[in-house]
């Protein structure tokens, strides 16, 4: 592992934890707890992003319990999609970022719905479960309510996260961006 990645990974994990808390304090209907994973995946590639995601999930476990560890798969998926998006210039415009965010949200929502339903019968974190409970109260079957709630929250969350990361990458000075060749490609420079 390069010294730069060694320095970047702890900061990115901290970003995941801290920005997640900021979004929570602002009472926004998004988590934003994968920004660090996305950023490192775009800057250094899939292995770096997957490492940040894994370490983040382990640390989140220390703060809220290790029962959510199975959701580490979602972190890996986000790292994969962010790395693919970066290679294809997916952060060149806000619209392209949003498009990749929606795609990521759909995939992550479907997989987290499967994990949530199979292991937890739909009761996981507050916001998504509250929506699931509301839909269940409207008469939807449990599996449909869990899937719909996961899809809605994940699409919104990942779209905002991709747009934020894209905005940051485009705003970066060439001097910093030049150190990360994949990131330059991601914004089409």
């Amino acid at each position: 592992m390069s010294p730069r990645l060694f320095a970047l990974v702890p900061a990115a994990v901290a970003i995941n934890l801290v920005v997640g808390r900021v979004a929570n304090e602002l009472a926004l209907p998004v988590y934003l707890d994968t920004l660090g994973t996305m950023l490192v995946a775009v800057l250094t590639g899939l292995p770096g992003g997957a490492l940040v995601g894994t370490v983040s999930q382990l640390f989140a476990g220390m703060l809220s319990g290790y029962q959510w560890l199975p959701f580490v798969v979602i972190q890996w998926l986000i790292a994969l999609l962010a790395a693919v998006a970066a290679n294809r210039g997916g952060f060149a415009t806000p619209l392209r970022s949003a498009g990749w965010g929606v795609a990521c949200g759909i995939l992550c929502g479907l997989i987290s719905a499967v994990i949530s339903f199979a292991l937890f019968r739909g009761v996981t974190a507050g916001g998504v479960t509250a929506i699931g409970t509301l839909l269940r109260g409207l008469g939807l079957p449990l599996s449909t309510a869990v899937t719909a709630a996961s899809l809605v929250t994940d699409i919104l969350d990942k779209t905002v996260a991709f747009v934020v990361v894209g905005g940051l990458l485009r705003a970066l000075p060439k001097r910093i961006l030049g150190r990360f060749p994949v990131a330059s490609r991601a914004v089409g420079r």
Partner: protein
Amino acid sequence: MRRAHPFTSGAIALALIVLALLVPAPRGTVTLYLLICLGAWFAGAGRAVWLGLLVMAPLWLLLLVMHGVLGEAPRFALPWGGSLSVSGSAWALAQGSRLGAIVTASLTFATVFDPHRFLQAAVERRWPWSATFLLVATLDAAERFGDQARRLREAQRTRGLRVRGSLRLRARAIPALVFPLLLASLTEADDRALALESRGLTHHGVRTAIDPPADTALDRVVRWSLLALVVGVVIWRAVS
């Protein structure tokens, strides 16, 4: 528990989490949860029990509503009116106590965890340096960025940023609060990379622990007993 070897407290937390997944619910999980709360309290980690209750309260409520109130028939009547699903309530109790046990064990471990002692213990045992460094550096970074986020929030508010009000107003606060943090993580990475390289981070060699914590006979007995207990429960659950 704070005086125990860092690997012992980690082993206790891990064993309790595995046991929470293995023991039959709800009787086993409820008993285990109560035992963990008592153990944490007597070990001087009562704060973890309260934090666990704070984390679990919304989950318990959602479990009750999602599975008890909105669960399938057959149902049983409540003395004060209304009814709950029989199978849903059983699941809510089983899952609620299991998650409570896992959360409280995790938070107790976090409360007694000392990064410095862990680093010294890991170096002495010759664990991979990169993994150990990542753990300790991440804890340090989380604290640093947490402070920075608080300062940023106050600074932006004095410049007129509104963090309360409509959803649109709050959403517009994201770039002002998040971009500087993301930028800081990138700009400091190079400085830190240089510092790490000059201090021999990538050097492959045996490192010496300056002040390794004592690994007593009691620590070793506890760790081996926990392993035996978990294996015993696995066998019991497999044959029963």
